[in-house]
């Protein structure tokens, strides 16, 4: 039933999902299906393949079959599942956004296709060539525009009509889809998610499609909706776009879009005959695809005439601002302000990974449900009275009453945007300001009344430096009790919430980048609050450099693909060492044994890493840890394996849910930060411990002198803390929080040094009063393990950083202290 006419077909096109090393062989084709819609298809070679491309040799059928059953791509928007439970990639050509061609000098050429929603698919490898022909064929059907910057990058221009092209993103299909199904809430969704993809107007329609596909994965009648899209496209192309020739109408269009949302709502509430419940998208699907086809079409046509004009400009207007988010909140006044968030979450998770989990799907549908209700309420309150049969009246009302409200809309939008993007940082700053100005005991506090602490704090601190130095004894951390001290300068992070999923997703632009300004807000947020556990897996790869903040959804797919290949290449290097070879390769052999020995000794009380007697292979997580460490020792042969690395890896495995490739590269990112700790000459460790020693001397000479007399000025009691970033000093959960705080690089990269100092200062009186010798101090510090409150230590540390900054150094101060000071930047 898939086939009608094949416009292009190329065999021997492979995809290589990370799980399947061998890859899957298939055929890529462009075909016009039975209703005239044109699809880009990739179909794996299969026995039971019901597609037109069954003429392949099926050498590795057994292999592929099992893989298909796992359906790794199944949840992707554009992948469909047929009755046989195998899968094909079938993309409506309208959904294509860009194609990047890679033609390496050595190796197989491949292309990466990105959908309008931002999803990139597994690269398609043309083992027997044919990329050029493929692109040529495609360009005969759709307009491919070669990028000015990259001749291998093609963007898909929706229509050939130049007027339409000039109105950058005016693909109307999402609206048709919505009407097609008489679903009001998708418009709202669209508005919600618009800022994430302002140049991808089809996004919302894809959402619906995703939903449809997920609900009716086996239903091939879906073609129908695409077909509708096409028809409607054509209709509108001819008639309506001229209305929008002026860009001045953007604003109006935006207003209209708002009114449209309302009209949809009203429309919906009044028209239960064609539209079943909002919440049951499966019903809708059946509805649209089967019996009510003609009915739907009618409605579509009529509503099209009303809805056409604003639509293209909606997209355009949104493309330049983040107002969409706020608008969305506005539209759902009666829901909580976080209502757009689930959708964003979905959007992002789907985009970053083409394999959303089933839970994501569920999430989507529930959020849609609640939005719906909100919409309903909204529409009830709305003064616009619209009957589904009176579209023209609606149109008039739209253009009159709603236009007046636009200013309000805009204002609200701005304020919501502000809330979303600026609130976290502002809250912190306010809090900080309160703490500072509220503190009476410290003269720093009394001197500070920063109206805008964000930028002025540093200056003010600097100004106050001279007076501080004039009387050094009125404010030292140790003549006030340590608990008092901690509230003086450090932000009370107990009141700072961890980075929530909604916030996280709000930082991305439409392409999936996080701009520099947002990065700073984000990192500050992480520094003070850590990260909600549910999104750690998404955020850590950014903090650890696996993905860069300015990468896009699609470039991340490329990175992921390339890193996967790279990882397995390195892994194969040691995997291929035979026993015989190993017997004459003592360096490898001993390294391997050491890693194995240490892996079972790492976090052995954590449920993930439990080791039963002599059954190393029974716990796959231990095997995974072993493999990653061994692979890293080949990746970084000079360092190889050093004890402590397994401690660094276990939280990563925990957060990355034991995904091998991501865990490896995150671990690599962490090792990049800490590499000098593991150098054979221990230079990194010595540098840090000596800086700590100098810092103590600078801050608390009395305690330093005591340590010096007791041979403790080497600070060796902090060796373990520094080496593995307090991994053993705090609980597993705390360590995850601490590490992301450290990785935010906010304030200074040297927080661990200040943490050591604050731990030491907390024990200052004990040490001095009991005249503790080095071993006693070491014992004391060792015994504090897992008995310290992380937040206290962090607050103290921040206070110490700030205290250190204002305490003036002599001109010939130690270099390491100058360096330390240079590492600090107060935002």
């Amino acid at each position, binding site marked *: 039933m898939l086939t009608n006419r094949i416009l292009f077909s190329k065999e021997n096109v492979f995809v290589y999902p990370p799980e399947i090393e061998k890859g899957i062989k298939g055929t890529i084709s462009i075909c016009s299906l039975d209703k005239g819609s044109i699809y880009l298809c990739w179909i794996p070679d299969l026995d039971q393949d019901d597609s037109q491309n069954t003429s392949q040799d099926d050498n590795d059928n057994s292999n592929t079959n099992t893989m298909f059953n796992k359906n790794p791509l199944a949840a992707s928007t554009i992948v469909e599942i047929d009755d046989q439970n195998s899968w094909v990639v079938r993309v409506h050509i309208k959904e294509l956004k860009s194609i990047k061609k890679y033609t390496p000098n050595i190796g197989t050429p491949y292309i990466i296709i990105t959908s309008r929603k931002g999803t990139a698919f597994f690269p398609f490898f043309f083992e027997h060539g044919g990329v050029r022909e493929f692109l040529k064929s495609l360009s005969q059907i759709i307009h491919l525009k070669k990028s000015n910057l990259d001749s291998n990058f093609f963007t898909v221009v929706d229509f050939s009509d130049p007027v339409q092209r000039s109105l950058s993103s005016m693909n109307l299909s999402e609206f048709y889809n919505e009407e097609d199904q008489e679903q009001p809430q998708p418009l709202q969704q669209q508005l919600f998610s618009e800022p994430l993809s302002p140049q991808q107007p089809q996004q919302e329609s894809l959402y619906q499609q995703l939903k449809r596909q997920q609900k009716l994965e086996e239903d091939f009648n879906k073609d129908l909706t695409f077909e509708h899209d096409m028809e409607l496209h054509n209709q509108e192309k001819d008639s309506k776009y001229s209305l929008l020739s002026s860009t001045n109408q953007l604003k109006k269009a935006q207003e209209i879009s708002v009114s449209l949302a309302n009209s949809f709502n009203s429309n919906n509430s009044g028209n239960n005959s064609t539209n079943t419940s909002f919440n049951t998208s499966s019903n809708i699907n059946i509805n649209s695809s089967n019996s009510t086809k003609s009915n739907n079409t009618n409605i579509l046509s009529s509503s099209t005439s009303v809805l056409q004009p604003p639509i293209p400009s909606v997209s355009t207007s949104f493309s330049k601002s983040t107002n969409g988010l706020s608008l969305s909140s506005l539209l759902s006044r009666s829901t909580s302000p976080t209502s757009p968030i689930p959708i964003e979450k979905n959007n992002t998770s789907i985009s970053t990974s083409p394999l959303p989990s089933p839970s994501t799907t569920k999430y989507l549908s529930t959020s849609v449900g609640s939005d719906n209700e909100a919409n309903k309420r909204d529409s009830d309150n709305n003064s616009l009275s619209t009957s589904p049969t009176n579209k023209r009246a609606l149109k008039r009302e739209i253009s009159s009453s709603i236009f007046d409200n636009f200013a309000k809309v805009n204002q609200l939008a701005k304020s919501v945007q502000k809330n979303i993007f600026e609130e976290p940082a502002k809250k912190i700053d306010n809090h900080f300001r309160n703490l500072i100005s509220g503190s009476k005991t410290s003269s720093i506090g009394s001197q500070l009344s920063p109206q805008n602490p964000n930028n002025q704090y540093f200056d003010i601190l600097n100004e106050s430096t001279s007076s501080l130095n004039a009387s050094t004894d009125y404010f030292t951390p140790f003549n006030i009790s340590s608990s008092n001290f901690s509230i003086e300068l450090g932000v009370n992070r107990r009141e700072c919430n961890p980075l929530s999923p909604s916030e996280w997703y709000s930082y991305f632009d439409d392409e999936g980048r996080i701009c520099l300004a947002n990065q700073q807000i984000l990192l500050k947020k992480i520094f003070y609050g850590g990260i909600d556990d549910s999104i750690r897996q998404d955020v850590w790869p950014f903090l650890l450099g696996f993905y860069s903040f300015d990468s896009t959804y699609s470039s991340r797919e490329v990175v992921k693909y390339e890193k996967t290949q790279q990882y397995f290449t390195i892994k194969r290097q040691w995997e291929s060492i035979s026993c015989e070879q190993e017997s004459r390769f003592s360096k490898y052999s*001993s390294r391997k044994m*050491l890693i194995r*020995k*240490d892996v*079972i*000794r*790492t976090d*052995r009380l954590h449920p993930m890493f439990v*080791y039963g*007697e002599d059954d190393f292979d029974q716990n796959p997580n231990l095997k995974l840890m072993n493999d990653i460490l061994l692979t890293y020792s080949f990746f970084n042969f000079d360092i190889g394996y*050093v*004890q*402590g690395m*397994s*401690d660094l890896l276990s939280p990563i495995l925990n957060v990355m849910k034991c995904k091998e490739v991501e865990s490896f590269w995150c671990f690599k990112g962490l090792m990049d930060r800490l590499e000098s700790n*593991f150098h*054979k*000459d*221990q230079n990194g*460790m*010595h540098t840090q411990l000596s800086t700590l020693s100098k810092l103590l001397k600078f801050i608390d000479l009395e305690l330093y002198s005591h340590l010096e007399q007791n*041979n403790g000025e*080497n600070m*060796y009691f902090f*060796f*373990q803390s520094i*080496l*593995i970033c307090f991994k*053993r000093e705090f609980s597993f959960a705390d360590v995850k929080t601490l590490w992301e705080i450290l990785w935010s690089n906010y304030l200074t990269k040297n927080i661990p040094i200040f943490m050591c100092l604050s731990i030491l200062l907390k024990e200052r009186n004990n040490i001095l009063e*009991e*005249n*503790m*010798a080095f*071993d*006693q101090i*070491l*014992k004391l510090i*060792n015994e504090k393990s897992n008995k310290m409150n992380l937040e206290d230590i962090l607050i103290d540390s921040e206070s110490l950083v700030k205290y250190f900054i204002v305490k003036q150094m002599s001109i010939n101060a130690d270099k390491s202290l100058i360096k330390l000071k240079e590492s600090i930047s107060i935002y």
Partner: protein
Amino acid sequence: MYAFLFKYIIIGDTGVGKSCLLLQFTDKRFQPVHDLTIGVEFGARMITIDNKQIKLQIWDTAGQESFRSITRSYYRGSAGALLVYDITRRDTFNHLTCWLKDARSYANSNMTIILIGNKSDMESKRAVSYEEGKQFAEENGLIFLETSAKTASNVEEAFVNTAGKIYEKIQKGDFDINNESFGIKLGAPQSKQDGQDNKQAAGGCCK
């Protein structure tokens, strides 16, 4: 409340059972899988020799080569060293020369060293014979024992015999008790405070 305090250091390749020996000695228990030691850990126990209470303060060091520069600093100021190898792993025995060289270079010349072949309970996997261990110890002037941290066999003896040897040296006057770098401290029985106030107390009751 001790007459003397002796400082020990436990050295040897990684995974030979240093931490397990310490745990067995201080806590009288065995953990088949012990946390990986990073840097230095610490244990203490009181023993009695010649009716005198002696406190053993034991530094358990990380075995891996990379941490050598840190662990070396603990040799200084140790009165005794337990040099441990694993009788089931030949290479840990082969590395003894290297460890001994380190100990001789960084410790004070009077440090008492005991060679310990650990894991004697794993007879079936033995890779280093008792005689080899014994011979190596004799050639290098070390005390020798085979122990099992798992069964506690000879563990007590290893620590106590070493203390006995150190005590002998004290009796012979080999140490300048006032000099703490020998890893020996005299305790003052009056009060804990004084006992730890090393210099004064040590000077006061120097024998």
